[in-house]
């Protein structure tokens, strides 16, 4: 039976933890607040160490909180991060996504900095500033940086934040034995989609949408062990999904993956979501890493990386590339479907559209089609935002028990 307006907005017959108000996906003010309270306070992956192979190699990074960063390896081999902002007149220091710079020199007035963030040259310093201001006053703003958990370079804009190890806690325990060897990025591409970043993270946090993926249905859902995969929630909003054996040859033309991954069973698949918007997705034989950079409440940039082992032979690497492309490449079988799915959500729940409820109500003992992974995320989101996801503006009058 269809519903009228009042019935449509009637509180769902679930506990308050089992649904959210769609305005959390569309409201500009909430988005700006998320940048401050969530992204600027969290450890975020900026790049991978293999993207900075040598001294003075740098990578620019658009931090999801909105601040542009430089990530650079010094000649002491230490990777540091700085605001990509000249302390003089606020110009961009480095424009290219990658490069090698012994000195970082602003194009505007030629102020120069070394890879430790020291200002090493102010043009006509004495003539202009006399003794009132000098290079020691003009260092770059350094951002806390740590390398870990597969060789990723993590940054945190909050000088008072906990350590990366404390932030991750036990969440990446399932991957511990599988990331002991150095990794290398072999695939990188971006996608911009008009949707909210949380909806992409949701897609990585629930497997009920495997109904959308023919590949996942035949290689996973129809295979033994699929419905035993369990979600586990961890402190700080992270969540994992247990492994099973994927039957890759069940897809027409598919074949079992020949090249393995350290410690992971053939056909194994582990997925771990890191709050607020990163996902480790390890299928024998490739690690895929998604990092989301929200550009607005309804505009999202996702970075997709594919990683193999640094020690790969050319033949092993070619196999990993092929395995990656089959489902995860820009012309693969799955990725396009996932992006289309969240594009549809962004289209239906765009700013200005009438608010609706979004349900996270499935309970299946935290197994694969349970929506507990998303509930776990929104509990953390609500805590950090000091807003309830089911009633972000306090005007819904939602009762605990409907």
């Amino acid at each position, binding site marked *: 039976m269809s519903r009228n307006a009042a019935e449509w907005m009637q509180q769902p017959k679930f506990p308050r933890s089992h649904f959210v108000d769609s305005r959390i996906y569309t409201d500009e003010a909430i988005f700006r607040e998320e940048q401050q309270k969530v992204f600027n306070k969290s450890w975020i992956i900026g790049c991978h160490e*293999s*993207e900075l192979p040598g001294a003075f190699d740098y*990578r620019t990074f658009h931090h999801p909180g909105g601040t542009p960063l430089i990530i650079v390896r010094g000649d002491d081999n230490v990777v540091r991060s700085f605001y990509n902002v000249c302390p003089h007149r606020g110009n961009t220091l480095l424009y*290219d*996504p*990658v490069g090698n710079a012994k000195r970082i020199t602003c194009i505007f007035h030629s102020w120069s900095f070394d890879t430790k963030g020291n200002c090493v040259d102010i043009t006509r310093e004495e003539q202009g500033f006399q003794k009132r201001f000098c290079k020691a006053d003009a260092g770059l703003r350094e951002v806390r940086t740590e390398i870990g958990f597969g060789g990723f370079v993590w940054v945190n804009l909050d000088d008072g934040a906990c350590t990366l190890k404390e932030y991750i806690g036990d969440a990446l325990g399932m991957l511990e034995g599988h990331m002991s060897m150095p990794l290398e*990025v*072999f*695939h*990188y*591409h*971006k*996608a*911009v*989609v008009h949707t909210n970043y949380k909806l992409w993270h949701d897609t990585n946090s629930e497997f009920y949408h495997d109904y*959308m993926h*023919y*590949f996942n249905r035949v290689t996973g859902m129809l295979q033994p062990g699929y419905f035993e995969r369990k979600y586990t929630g961890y402190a700080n909003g992270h969540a994992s999904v247990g492994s099973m054996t994927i039957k890759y040859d069940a*897809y*027409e*033309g598919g074949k079992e993956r020949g090249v393995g991954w350290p410690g992971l069973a053939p056909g194994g698949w582990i997925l771990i979501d890191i709050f607020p918007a990163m996902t480790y997705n390890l299928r024998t034989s490739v690690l895929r890493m998604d990092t989301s950079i929200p550009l607005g409440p309804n505009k999202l940039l996702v970075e997709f*990386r594919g990683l193999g082992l640094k020690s790969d032979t050319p033949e092993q690497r070619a196999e990993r*590339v*092929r395995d990656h*492309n089959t489902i995860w*490449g*820009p*012309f693969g*079988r799955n*990725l*396009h*479907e996932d*992006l*289309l799915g*969240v*594009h549809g959500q962004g289209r239906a729940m765009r700013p200005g559209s009438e608010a609706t409820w979004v349900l996270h109500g499935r309970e299946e003992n935290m197994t694969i089609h349970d929506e507990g992974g998303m509930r776990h995320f929104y509990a953390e989101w609500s805590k950090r935002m000091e807003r309830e996801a089911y009633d972000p503006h306090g005007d819904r009058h939602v009762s605990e028990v409907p």
Partner: protein
Amino acid sequence: MESAAPTPATRIAIEELIYRTCLALDEKNFKAYLDLCDDDFRYTITAHSPEIRKDMIWLDHDKAGMQLLFANLPRHISDHSPLTRHAIVFTVDHAGELTQVVSALQVFKTTLDGGVTELFAIGRYLDTVRVDGTIPKLTKRVVKLETRQFGFGNHIPF
């Protein structure tokens, strides 16, 4: 073997082959597309990522692999916006049976709702064509893409 300019008739036949591949894919007439390809056909999509300083392979299939890919398409969910491929043949270097052809490629996407057309991708076709008799066949196609962002993407090769 030294390369040489093809005869005008051969060049016309080769250009028409390239354009027919575009028309066949635009019409999703995959059988017609594969009929334009040799039995030992190889299809590859490549792109260079400045971000990771690496050349990438995004798709790589032989003729049977392409046939399977096309056969599997209806089993997957796709955006239904039609793509239109525009190729312009730049160079044709003839060397014996095999001819190297470089073409500019532009792919346009047109929305079903309203018919807005946007540039979807640019790149080049780097083709190897076998000219054996009067009908040239595509032996190898490398789609070298400059565009690396496709929004919510596309299942169907260029």
